[in-house]
């Protein structure tokens, strides 16, 4: 699992995840995700290259998202592949974290 970031207009930090967000993948990104959550105002988590998401991976998304929200920021998820989106739905995570498939729509919500 790799993580890279991209600064976008409007104070948006786009986090691009790549690989499997399983137990091992979650452990690989937790620290960096939490660091990002400590400074980002608007966080866009791009899941388009995440091929697997389990409950530990969900935790790696939820904990930083809560931190951003506590500071008055916003978080959105972008372009999960169908099976990853099914995990988001089965866990009801999509009810509290907006999921978008179009970048423009995600950016508009965050701004």
């Amino acid at each position, binding site marked *: 699992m790799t993580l890279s970031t991209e600064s976008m207009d409007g104070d948006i930090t786009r986090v691009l995840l790549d690989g499997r967000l399983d137990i091992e993948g979650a452990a690989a990104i937790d620290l960096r995700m939490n660091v990002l959550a400590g400074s980002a105002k608007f966080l866009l988590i791009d899941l388009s290259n995440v091929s697997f998401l389990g*409950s530990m991976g969900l935790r790696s998304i*939820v904990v930083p998202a809560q931190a951003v929200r*506590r500071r008055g920021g916003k978080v959105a998820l972008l372009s999960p592949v169908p099976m990853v989106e099914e995990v988001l739905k089965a866990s009801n995570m999509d009810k509290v974290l907006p999921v978008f498939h179009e970048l423009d729509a995600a950016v508009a919500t965050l701004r």
Partner: protein
Amino acid sequence: MIASAMLPFFEGPGLPVMPTEESQDLLVLDSRLTELSRVQSWAEELADELNLNQKTRYAIRLCLEEALANIVIHGYRSESGHPVVIRRWFAEGTLFFAIEDEATPFALEADAAGADAQEPASLESLTPGGNGIPLLRHFAGSLAYERLDGGNRLTMGFPVQPF
């Protein structure tokens, strides 16, 4: 020896009959999360042999990870040195995995009444974690839990749908 019958929160056609030792594959693990990679490779081999589609492969990977994480983290409290035995077999169009441990009953029983994912009121009110059982319920074709004499057995079935 089975101490209690299938618990009501598990769904499926009933306890699948486990075949004899000679006809099933078996993997013995230590109670460490790092053993997951062995399990996944072992499951992938079979998935290749059966030419399983991507959706079924994903479901198997997810359920094995959730089940083993529950055993190691909750059942054995992240203590290594305890056995986890996994058997796999194919019967009537379904691939089964039975996972046995010698741990105390973990969250599965405690979560019996609320095993479905509860709709959270807000992100802030969400308790991170606790999604393992809802995910198992959603992705496994069938689930059966038995409390054994000194352990647990979780049997997960996946209908096989080749390409």
